[in-house]
């Protein structure tokens, strides 16, 4: 009896008991909701389950990165949407970061006009809803570009009009695979060379001709590889026939407009993060660097930015996640992302709202957690190492 009492009074036992009870409760609730929903749906005659994913989709998509056609199944349509969401998110994150850094640094500049313009931009962007940006860029882009017959030709192979930018596409991608491999190898070589140069400098104090090596490996070799691949491949060059150019690949205006909206909007927030990060670095740091004789550009890149990055990384992660979530605004302008294609067209054709919304949710969750994990890894890497 007393052993039983001491067992139930044991703190560890109680802790475990509460944990297990909570998990059972949550699982029970989830099971209850799922069963309740499916029972009611059966009663109301609404189909449920995931069989619909293997039905023919029948939906035509104007911007496809996979080899999807409308004869494929709905699962393939789902992946088209996921790929389009990821494409616009990744490019928007890169460009917004570049523009945001430029704006943030400009705002701190001692040049009055530059800092005022940057400040005004940030205030403007932060007080305007994103949907406005999306629609503004969309109708702005369409209105600014000519009809297909008056297309702006770029070197006679690519054409810009309000149906998008039609670019030539290689008939067979084989040569480009080799070119991409060559580019990767030369970049890897540069990375190894710079690591070697850094070690040598630490050991001997001598500078390696890293600039020349860098130009050679980062620019010249890839350029040669791509030039070779381009010349050795037959191209599908767009030709104007009837309503529009035929052949090639079309970068649709919806993509351009959504990208522009996400970049210009997010850059305003990133600029503030950059400014806050830089201002968080004690003034004595840059004064000390200046006393050592470093020029302003080097003070920024060697002393201030590395310390500011530690402060900036967590809020930057938030902004990157926002870009991912905000990419769903593409649905407002017919950008075929996962929301528009899967939660729009596919949901309407199948009516299976619960399954489709759950899958769309999972997409954002998985990509979002991946972005977070990457940024956490980066944050840990640049964190101040204390001993």
């Amino acid at each position, binding site marked *: 009896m007393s052993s039983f009492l001491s067992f139930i009074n044991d703190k560890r036992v109680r802790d475990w008991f509460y944990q297990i009870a909570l998990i059972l409760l949550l699982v029970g609730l989830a099971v209850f909701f799922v069963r309740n929903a499916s029972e009611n749906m059966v009663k109301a*005659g609404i189909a449920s389950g995931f069989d619909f994913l293997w039905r023919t989709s029948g939906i035509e998509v104007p911007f496809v990165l996979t080899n999807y056609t409308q004869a494929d199944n709905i699962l393939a349509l789902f992946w088209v949407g996921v790929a389009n969401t990821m494409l616009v998110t990744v490019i928007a994150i890169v460009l917004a970061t570049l523009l945001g850094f430029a704006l943030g640094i400009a705002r701190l500049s001692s040049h009055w006009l530059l800092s005022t313009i940057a400040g005004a931009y940030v205030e403007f962007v932060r007080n305007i809803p994103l949907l406005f940006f999306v629609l503004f860029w969309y109708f702005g882009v369409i209105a600014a570009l000519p009809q297909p017959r008056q297309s702006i030709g770029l070197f006679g192979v690519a054409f810009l009009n309000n149906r998008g930018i039609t670019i030539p596409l290689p008939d067979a991608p084989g040569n480009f695979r080799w070119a991409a491999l060559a580019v990767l190898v030369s970049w890897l070589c540069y990375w190894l060379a710079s690591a070697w140069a850094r070690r040598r400098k630490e050991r001997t104090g001598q500078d390696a001709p890293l600039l020349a090596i860098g130009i050679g490996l980062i620019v010249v070799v890839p350029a040669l590889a791509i030039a070779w691949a381009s010349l050795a491949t037959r191209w599908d060059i767009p030709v104007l026939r009837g309503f529009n150019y035929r052949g090639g690949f079309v970068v649709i205006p919806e993509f351009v407009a959504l990208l522009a909206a996400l970049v210009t909007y997010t850059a305003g927030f990133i600029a503030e993060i950059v400014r806050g990060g830089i201002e968080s670095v004690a003034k004595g740091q840059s004064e000390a660097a200046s006393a050592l004789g470093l020029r302003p550009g080097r003070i920024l890149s060697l002393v201030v930015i590395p310390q500011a990055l530690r402060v900036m990384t967590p809020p930057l992660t938030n902004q990157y996640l926002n870009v991912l979530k905000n990419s769903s605004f593409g649905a407002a302008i*017919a950008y075929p992302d996962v929301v528009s294609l899967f939660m729009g067209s596919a*949901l*309407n054709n199948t*009516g299976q709202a619960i399954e489709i919304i759950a899958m769309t949710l999972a997409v954002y969750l998985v990509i979002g957690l991946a972005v977070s994990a990457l940024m956490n890894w980066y944050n840990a890497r640049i964190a101040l190492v204390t001993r």
Partner: protein
Amino acid sequence: MTIRILGAAFLLAAGTSMAQAQQLAPSPTLDAVKARGNLECGVHLGLPGFSFANDKGEWSGLDVDYCKALAAAVLGDASKVKYTPTSVQQRWPILQSGQVDVLARNSTITFSRNATLGLNFQGINFYEGQTFIVRKSANAKTAADLDGASVCVAAGSTEEKNAADWFRERNLKTTITNFQKNDDAIAAYDAGRCDAYTAGVGALAGQRAKLKNPEEHIILTQPISNDPQGPVTRWGDERWQLIVRWVLNGTIAAEALGVTSKNVDEMKANSKNSEVRRLLGAEGGFGAMMGLSNDWMYNVIKQVGNYGESYERTVGMGSNLKMERGQNQLWTKGGLLFTPPFQ
């Protein structure tokens, strides 16, 4: 003696249970409508000729007239309707979840909607055919001339798939851009994003007015599909479905029988035609069989009019759309409309 009493008791019991069997099946939707005092009707966000609210917030259109007819039949007052405007995407969930009692929203009857969405289609109030609106400058006469064109369409509509199938079957290369709302697709077409916008003939006739310069556009006359549309209910509540179906049938029957909002009083009082008398509740007690008052169709015709009157007023010659009756004419006059007998 005892046997007699027992026999009488038995007959009484049998009689009571017979009377109970004649009682109506429960209809939660009808009860809710009566208790609420208005009919919740799901309509289009704004489609002239079908469901469109003017600047005073007054709704009109062929689908709106159906809502009014149903309210007149159920509540005796055609004005007791609460309209819920729905987008292409919202329409099914709003009906399935019970937020509206009936949906009259240019929705095409299809097999998979009927089989997998828990929806029932209660008849046809408009035979629609899908076609395209293009700029006159494009010189397109039929859909086959649209090879290479960009087409704007509302995502999740039957038109989205129809167009994709139609062009693919003919090996014509078109780019179909799918917008979330009809209005977004039209705005993009108007801005020059697309060479054509596709929807039903009737819908296009109404939507054309939304373009900046309506006279610069033409609607291709040859439809690429047949899209019958009508009021929709959710599964369950058979009695409500019966009412929704027969109010629509009643408006068509009234036109076939020559009953109009002008002559309905006179017809009810004097007509010798028993089908007219049953329709208007002068005999037969048809309304009571569904749990309505016997003058249910009288109220509909008196307050809203028969199908032909609705058609002319909303999309026909009496409206801005000026559409011919075409397929939406009675079968006796070369169209496709007919109704089973009121017998």
